[in-house]
């Protein structure tokens, strides 16, 4: 049984540099790193010291507020660096990989017969729990909470997103195992979305409620799915997972070992031959970036897609959640009369001497220039055209900016994550930092109420 969801409001950002459907095994990385900024809101407590030896799946640190939530090593080797920032905050951990890889093995209960608490315990100690995110607040799920439903979006609409139909091919067993286990954690449904005309393996799983989604970005964001299927109310919790993380959870459930291997798409106009690579969480990006070749040397490497990813560097490491690495040219140059001349080579949501509306199928080579300066909110009605949720985006942003908790609550902040505002941020004429505003609003609300 499936239901159809058709999204009308939105904008597909078509960029140059989509990955072609070939997968190469990336060269093995010497050093692996976990960037702790990936785990928003977690205060890490180290379990190991510099110089300690670890196996794949050995715990490196735990969540200070939740001692049984472990974060594990993606590789076996030696913990060579604990990078600290201001007030000794841990920024990243680096592990020098051994030649021979060994994995910690967990005892896995029979999935069909296992209880919720057994599954929770396994996910927590194996380091797979952080893959489960919760809303409200868009943070790693609270294991004590019981979600009213679990949402998984298998429809990738973000610019240059990895083609899920392709990367999930052959992972049916892992996906099914993960779904069966996760379904035990909620008394509600497991909602899964796939593209309307896709042959995504997610669509044929058992124990899910399937939704066939069509329409432009952000139709594929999980927040859009939640809002259209079963919006979050105050006090409710839903959990969300990304399909590529389901594969890792499923792998653990089937083998008892945490295997951080993942197929990622290397994309963007700064990549000479964009394609797919199999590599591991925390691997050096250079191990596959230069294998594909790069254009020029003034580019930005992003863990994730161009709208929601985090900036890293060519010598950076693959993020914990990333299944895309994007490389785009930096736009740190001036443009003569850039504000009033007719524009053909950039995407625009208006027709103010901008002509992207004439070429709906053209692919653009966008750089990281802001195309204008930060201003106060002026234009109205533009965000609504690309924002399919039943929420007033500008009013919610303003409520977050003035830190009005009542307004934030009433206007629907519980329902959103920063990524839901990535598209309004993209088209924002005033160049306001929407995702940052929402993130700060969520953190404030969590601190005061959650």
């Amino acid at each position: 049984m499936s239901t159809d969801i058709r999204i009308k409001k939105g904008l597909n950002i078509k960029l140059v540099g989509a990955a072609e459907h070939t997968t190469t095994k990336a060269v093995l990385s010497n050093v692996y790193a976990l960037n702790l900024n990936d785990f928003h809101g977690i205060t890490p407590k180290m379990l190991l010291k510099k110089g300690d030896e670890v196996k794949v799946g050995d715990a490196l640190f735990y969540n200070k507020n939740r001692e049984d939530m472990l974060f594990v090593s993606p590789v076996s080797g030696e913990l060579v660096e604990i990078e600290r920032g201001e007030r000794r905050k841990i920024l990243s951990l680096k592990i020098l990989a051994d030649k021979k890889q060994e994995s910690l093995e967990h005892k896995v209960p029979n999935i069909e017969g296992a209880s919720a608490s057994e599954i929770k315990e396994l996910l927590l100690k194996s380091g797979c729990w952080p893959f489960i995110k919760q809303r409200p607040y868009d943070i790693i799920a609270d294991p004590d909470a019981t979600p009213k439903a679990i949402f998984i979006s298998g429809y990738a609409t973000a610019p240059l997103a990895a083609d899920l139909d392709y990367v999930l091919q052959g992972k049916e067993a892992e996906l099914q195992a993960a779904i069966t286990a996760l379904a035990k954690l909620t008394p509600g449904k497991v909602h899964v979305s796939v593209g309307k005309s896709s042959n995504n393996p997610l669509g044929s799983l058992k124990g899910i409620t399937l939704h066939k989604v069509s329409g432009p970005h952000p139709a594929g964001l999980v927040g859009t799915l939640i809002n259209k299927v079963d919006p979050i109310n105050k006090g409710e919790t839903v959990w969300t997972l990304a399909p590529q993380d389901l594969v890792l959870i499923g792998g653990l459930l089937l083998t008892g070992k945490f295997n951080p291997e993942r197929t990622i798409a290397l994309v963007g106009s700064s990549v000479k031959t964009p394609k797919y690579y199999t590599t591991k969480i925390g691997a050096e990006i250079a191990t596959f970036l230069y294998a594909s070749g790069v254009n020029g040397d003034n580019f930005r490497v992003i863990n994730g897609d161009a709208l929601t990813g985090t900036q890293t560097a060519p010598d950076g490491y693959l993020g914990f959640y990333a299944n895309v690495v994007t490389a785009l040219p930096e736009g740190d140059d001036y443009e003569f009369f850039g504000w009033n001349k007719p524009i053909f080579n950039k995407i625009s949501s208006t027709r103010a001497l901008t002509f992207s509306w004439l070429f709906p199928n053209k692919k653009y080579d966008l750089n990281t220039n802001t195309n204008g300066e930060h201003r106060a909110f002026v234009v109205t009605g533009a965000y609504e055209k690309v924002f399919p949720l039943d929420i007033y985006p500008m009013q919610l942003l303003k409520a977050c900016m003035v830190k009005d908790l009542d307004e934030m609550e009433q206007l629907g902040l519980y329902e959103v994550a920063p990524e839901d505002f990535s598209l309004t941020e993209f088209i924002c004429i005033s160049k306001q930092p929407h995702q940052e505003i929402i993130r700060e609003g969520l953190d404030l609300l969590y601190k005061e109420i959650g």
Partner: protein
Amino acid sequence: MKKKLHNLKEKYKGKKMAPAFNALHTFLYMPNETTHSGSHVRAADDLKRTMNTVIMALIPVLLFGIFNAGYQHYSAINGFPADFSLFEHFLTFDNFWIGAITVLPLVIVSYGVGLGIEFLFAVIKGHEVEEGYLVTGMLVPLIIPVDTPLWMLAVAVAFGVVIGKEVFGGTGMNILNPALTIRAFLFFAYPTWMSGDKVWVHQAVDLAGTPDAISGETVLGYLAANKGAEFSYSISDMFLGFIPGSVGETSTILILLGGLFLIFSKIASWRIMLSAVLGSLVMGFVFNMVVDAGWITETSKFYGLMSLDFWQHLIIGGLAFGIVYMATDPVTGAQTNRGKWIYGFFIGFISVMIRVFNPAYPEGVFLAILLMNVFAPTIDHYVIRGNVKRRLKRLKNATIFPKDTDNKAEELKAETV
């Protein structure tokens, strides 16, 4: 050049004059700023481009206003040409010259004083110069009579920018449309100048009382004085704009084209424009019904405007200009889509109402828009409450599970709030 300016920018960084320098620099070059948080790529539009699009939509109106200033001046002296030809009687150098020496000084004073104050505030408060005044500065000369003394305009602009905008925090924060605040200030501070039947045509004031006296009465003026039979303008004159009035308001067809351009470029709200037109038609139609029902007689002082065919309200006075360029100001207008319908409707409705019932000055558009500017946040408030109510209603059926601190997920039952 690019390099030199970049070095200068670095030199000015952190200094007091930096905003002023940056304002000029970004005018020449789009800045080299890259994204730091959130989306790594951004769309092409910025506020400068948006404002520039509105200015482009105003250029035809301004050019027409320049020629019309001369045309009205000479026609008032020599009489309207019997066999009007566009190139022989309208687009002439004489007309242009009169327009150039009357209208262009208004534009220069408006921009000079207004931008001067904007720069001053930006330097004092240390923020960038925002582009709001680019449009305001162009609107102001278009909504005032051609013979407005420049010193009055300068005083009004200073008042409008400081009290109408900067005290609220600058562009994006103001409650009232700054251009209309300037217009209202002129009207209420210098009523003898700004109303009456002289100021609309160049030199009509100077020549008043002399043997060469000319009339500068507008169509609205005639109608308000129940002298509708005395003017000789045809419907097409009014639609095309060959009538006296504020500089930019007369040519309905060019305003219509400007409006269509703004709607096409997705800069201005078609909802506001359409609903304002509907609002004015409804009010005009109601007045026509009152006349038809015989409730007022020809001797009534309201008869002239009340009996005007309801649709003709749109082609005389500043109604069309106000609807297209002023009511659609996103900062001071309603911000929600549903709110825009209500906001626009009442602008049209109240404009025509004031026009008919205000004997002192038969133009209600700027007052109607200012009034609705004040009410726009209230309209939005109620529209948004609708969304909040929907959310609260949903909350009644929420499935909230208590915290499972003992790990007994399977035993938990949903609580209903």
